[in-house]
């Protein structure tokens, strides 16, 4: 080890791997994936993983991905809820890995919920 | 010298910077009691008897190790200090075997003396659990009785200072006791029998094996012809056991006392010391001239010999093959003298009075029986002789001065100085140089090898060649020279080694002097001085001038180093393990 920069590079890299353990409190944006039997059967796992990977790839801070049980609308699985502090909850349905990447891009990063994917659009 | 100003018991005092409170108090005429403290070798502050009050200090202060500093106010005799010291003594007594009536150290016990000084009125003030320890009497020379041990560790320090360290503290807390590793018996470890632990023990926990009964038995046996011989240093130390000044030469009174004890003949080991020089000088010249193993190392000190056998067995070829003076003496008695008297050597009992506990071990060594019987039957220490004199009711101080018996009472000054470090070397040089050059020395004083330094070196030009010699006393110092021999950096031809620091005058068999004397009086130098004075006063100062020696060679041995001399006066050594 010769420089502080070397150490800082290791630190940043290591930190990325540990963001999941940060206590983000109420300030965090939470992406909750329905992971009950119905969700998993409908393909929730690749969706969950796509969210995790995309957030890591973009090095987004203050965003956690977690799971939940059956939300009760099994025909719409995989279902994903995005909860942002101070905003309405947005519920996306019939999600895929590709859609997940788009949600991160449009909704999480740019603040534009994708209405077409929401439960509202699906039930129309 | 830089000094600091302090106050002791309100008395202003200026003392050298770096002094301990103990040293400073002595300058002020106050003796602070100590038990564990031995200057330079046991500064461990363990016994807590020397505690004093220092103004501003949180608790009491350990006088033996605490350095004074400017403005320090010390109180050595307050109620608190006295109470603490008394409590310490009472606690020590609570684990101490208080059979003082039958203890060999009664009267010379430091604990006993302190209890008296501090008015310990109840020896059972802290009576409680005690641990019983078995004696260790496995070694040839001494007995350890842990029931009397006060754990001052002076013996451990003395053993460490010899570079031996075969005893130390085992277990911990209340169970702490002094013994060898794994509680092995002393006979089964590499103890060299030097007895330095004994002379440093404040109590009766370590004592020499008492052989006085055997001596008395022999004297009282009408069929036995009992010959006593006294080592060179005994005359310089025996008086101490009778309260005489350190360094008083009591040769005449000693002879008188021995005669009154009933020995048939009172001879001088000094005679054998002269004989040793004849043989050793010859051996040395032979090794130099015929490519023998060099450097040659003296072999008078049995503690040193045992050290070499345990720790440097590979250097055994460097040892002179000469027996020690004690053994040469015994061998001469049981061969030549027995023949002269027409006596069966089995009826002869040779008793050595030695400054040394290792001599007890030496008498039992193999290859020490020229006549077929042990060369020496019994070796007793200076202390044992003193006890014999005392118990025989002899007023030692009032005895007339008497002369040794003939013919083996004759000796030269060269033999007398065997008792001090450097003495053997000087005596050997006196004879070797004259033998080599064939000329009389202008001066017999080889002052370079005298004195109490740990290691002394000198080089002499003898008939065109340089002879380089070294002298060491104390096995730890000997180690320095031995390591040099091992790594090939020793360019000496001749080395004298004595097992005990300072040589025989400080041997493990010498009279007990309390630690306070050892710490503040140059015991070794003062004892040695008596020997050098005797040498200077002697008309004959070279071993080869001893008439009895000349007669012995003429009538019996032939030449120094002759076949017969080898059979009777030389021995061999064995490599020993460190643990059995």
């Amino acid at each position, binding site marked *: *080890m*010769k*420089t*502080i920069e070397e*150490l*800082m590079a*290791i*630190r940043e890299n*290591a*930190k990325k*791997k*540990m963001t*999941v*353990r940060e206590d*983000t*409190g109420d300030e965090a944006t939470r992406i909750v*994936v*329905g*992971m*009950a*039997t119905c969700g*998993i059967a409908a393909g929730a796992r690749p969706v969950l*993983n796509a969210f*995790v990977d995309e957030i890591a790839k973009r090095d987004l801070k203050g965003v*956690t*991905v*977690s*799971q*939940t*049980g059956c939300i009760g609308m099994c025909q719409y699985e995989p279902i994903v809820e995005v909860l942002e502090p101070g905003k309405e909850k947005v519920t996306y349905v019939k999600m895929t890995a590709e859609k997940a990447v788009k949600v991160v891009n449009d909704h999480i990063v740019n603040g534009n919920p994708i209405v077409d994917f929401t439960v509202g659009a699906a039930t129309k | 010298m830089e000094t600091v100003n302090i106050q002791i018991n309100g008395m202003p005092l200026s003392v050298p910077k770096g002094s301990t409170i103990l040293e400073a108090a002595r300058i002020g005429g106050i003796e602070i009691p100590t038990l564990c403290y031995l200057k330079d070798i046991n*500064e*461990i*502050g*363990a*016994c*807590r008897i020397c*505690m004093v009050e220092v103004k501003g200090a949180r*608790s*009491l202060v*350990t006088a033996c190790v*605490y350095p004074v500093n400017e403005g320090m106010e010390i109180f050595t005799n307050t109620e*608190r200090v006295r*109470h*603490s010291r008394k*409590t*310490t003594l009472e*606690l*020590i007594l*609570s684990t101490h075997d208080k059979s003082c009536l039958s203890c060999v150290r009664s009267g010379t016990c430091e604990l006993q003396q302190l209890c008296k000084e501090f008015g310990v009125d109840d020896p059972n003030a*802290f009576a*409680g*659990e005690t641990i019983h320890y078995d004696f260790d009497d496995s070694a040839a020379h001494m007995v350890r009785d842990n029931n009397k041990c006060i*754990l001052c560790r002076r013996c451990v320090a003395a053993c460490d200072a010899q570079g031996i360290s075969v005893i*130390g*503290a085992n277990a*911990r*807390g*209340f*169970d*702490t006791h002094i013994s060898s590793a794994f509680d092995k018996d002393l006979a089964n470890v590499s103890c060299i029998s030097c007895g330095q632990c004994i002379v440093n023990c404040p109590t009766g926990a370590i004592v020499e094996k008492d052989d006085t009964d055997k001596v008395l038995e022999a004297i009282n046996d009408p069929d036995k012809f009992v010959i006593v011989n006294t080592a060179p240093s005994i005359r310089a130390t025996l008086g101490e056991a009778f309260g005489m000044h350190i360094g008083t030469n009591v040769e005449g009174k000693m002879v008188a006392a021995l005669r009154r004890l009933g020995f048939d003949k009172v001879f001088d080991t000094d005679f054998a010391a002269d004989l040793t020089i004849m043989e050793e000088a010859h051996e040395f010249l032979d090794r130099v001239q015929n490519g023998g193993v060099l450097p040659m190392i003296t072999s008078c000190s049995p503690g040193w010999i045992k050290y070499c056998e345990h720790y440097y067995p590979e250097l055994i070829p460097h040892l002179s093959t000469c027996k020690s003076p004690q053994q040469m003496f015994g061998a001469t008695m049981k061969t030549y003298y027995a023949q002269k008297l027409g006596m069966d050597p089995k009826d002869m009992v040779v008793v050595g009075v030695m400054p040394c506990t290792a001599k007890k071990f030496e008498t039992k060594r193999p290859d020490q029986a020229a006549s077929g019987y042990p060369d020496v039957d019994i070796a007793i220490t200076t202390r044992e002789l003193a006890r014999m004199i005392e118990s025989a009711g002899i007023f030692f101080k009032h005895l007339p001065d008497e002369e040794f018996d003939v013919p083996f009472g004759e000796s030269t000054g060269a033999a007398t100085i065997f008792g001090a470090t450097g003495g053997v070397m000087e005596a050997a040089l006196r004879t070797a140089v004259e033998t080599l050059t064939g000329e009389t020395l202008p001066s017999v004083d080889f002052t370079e090898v005298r004195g109490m330094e740990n290691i002394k070196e000198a080089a002499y030009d003898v008939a065109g060649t340089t002879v380089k010699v070294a002298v060491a006393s104390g096995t730890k110092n000997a180690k320095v020279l031995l390591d040099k021999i091992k790594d090939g950096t020793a360019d000496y031809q001749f080395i004298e080694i004595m097992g005990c620091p300072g040589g025989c005058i400080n041997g493990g068999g010498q009279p007990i002097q309390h630690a306070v004397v050892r710490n503040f009086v140059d015991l070794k130098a003062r004892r040695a001085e008596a020997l050098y004075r005797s040498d200077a006063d002697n008309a004959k100062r070279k071993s080869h001038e001893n008439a009895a020696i000349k007669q012995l060679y003429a009538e019996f041995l032939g030449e120094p180093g002759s076949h017969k001399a080898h059979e009777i006066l030389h021995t061999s050594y064995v490599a020993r393990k460190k643990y059995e």
Partner: protein
Amino acid sequence: MYRSHVLVCGGTGCTSSNSLAIIDALESEIAKKGLQEEVKVVRTGCFGLCALGPIMIVYPEGSFYSQVKVEDVPEIVEEHLLKGRLVKRLLYDETVTMEDVKSLQETDFYKKQHRVALRNCGVIDPENIEEYIAFDGYMALAKCLKELTPAEVIQIVKDSGLRGRGGGGFPTGLKWSFTAANEADQKYVVCNADEGDPGAFMDRSVLEGDPHCIVEAMTICGYATGATEGYVYVRAEYPIAVKRLKIAIKQAREYGLLGKNIFDSGFDFDLHVRLGAGAFVCGEETALMTSIEGNRGEPRPRPPYPAVKGLFRKPTTENNVETFANIPQIILKGADWFASMGTEKSKGTKVFALGGKIKNTGLVEIPMGTTLREIIEEIGGGIPNGKKFKAAQTGGPSGGCIPASLMDTPIDYDNLTAIGCMMGSGGLIVMDEDNCMVDIAKFFLNFTVDESCGKCTPCRVGTKRLLEMLDKITAGKATMEDLDKLEDLCNYIKANSLCGLGQTAPNPVLATLKFFREEYVAHIQDKKCPAGVCKALMTYSIEADKCRGCTACARKCPAGAIEGKVKEVHTINTDKCIKCGVCLETCKFGAVVKK
């Protein structure tokens, strides 16, 4: 990239309640469900709430599972990790309220705590240097070597007000400056990890949970004082700590954070680990150094002090683990930040090991100045079984007790000293009304008698005699004169012993005498043990009106001390009775009474 991290405590406490098997089970269950790419299992150091071990935290939710068993693992994996449903029955009940699951930090146990020394314990994987670096690890060292002079480092430590956490409370910066001031060809840094107080395990937890912070702090100390070599003296009874410390040292060497020319600064430093054989006295700094040198671990007189002649007779700085654990944070966040915590003369936080009669046994780190009441009632969850608090012992066998009347004393070095106690290394043992204070004093003294090295007379013989006097008291054989003699001997041992072990050994006796003298007097004059602990002073008897003569007690009595025929009143022969209490437990009618 893992979406979830499962942290399982791998500290000694949880390890001994089988957390390693839980980790194995977790990993195999996760693999079975094909989640190994999504969920990472991390073995951490101690979380502190040892009473509830084995402990597991699942992130990102931060769900705190306690007392997890191997059998619970499939359910946690199936429900929580796969389906995202919390397994509520295993959650720490303090975190579960009617409507919500609270975060751990909001529970009573954690919310008053302030973790500085323990900040990474239970948070990072101690065997992974990168996790330590992720939490600013080695940044303090980099700052020292790149931006600060040794004198500046010492000044920061001085200004922080940090004092030695090992017991004495000596100002750390001052200690460093003493060593720095001594010129020598070689100097040393020593970390005292020979934690020996009964019940104290904060140093073990730091070494197990965050070993790199000790490596970093010692290196900083070396830079500040001019030492190039360090020794960590750790008990051999701490195998996990030793292993992680060795891993940490190896990793630090690999990353160039130990060794030659660290951070290209020209500064060299390396560390060695030495194992202690479990002698309490080796926690005393001079005994510790004697032991490192290869000799029998015994203290030596001071002066000379270690800063002048320490390890191998060279200038040496010795600090304990918790002290070092504070250093990197002080360097990074500044002296003012540290000094803002605590009281006027005791800055920062202190870790305590809560033990004894308290609900939440474990490790807590609190700002100096927190009261004993807050520690016991709020953080510790109070005394179990509705019993009354009697006293708390701090400082282990060297300390004293704090009675209920002083519960509101803010805990810091000076306040504890003022009431005859001492901070010690931070063991805090809670006692309730069922504890006999004479017996407690005896317990601690028994420990010091056992652990005395045997070098000096007052400690070797004095403490033994002291213990015998206490035995006499609890046996009901002492007189009031013995009590005076007891006190006198205590004061003698304090004033005359060679090292701290002996000098403080009588403290448990003196403190209990000070606050609970009446209990001593009760033992001596009334021949009664008020708490009902001291066997010799108790008698068991059978109340005739309650005894039905069922013979149950007589059949159970191991000493054959109970006599009586069926359906007749039984009696206890007190000469034969060994006071084991079996009859009391056996009797269904409440006829056996203990007095």
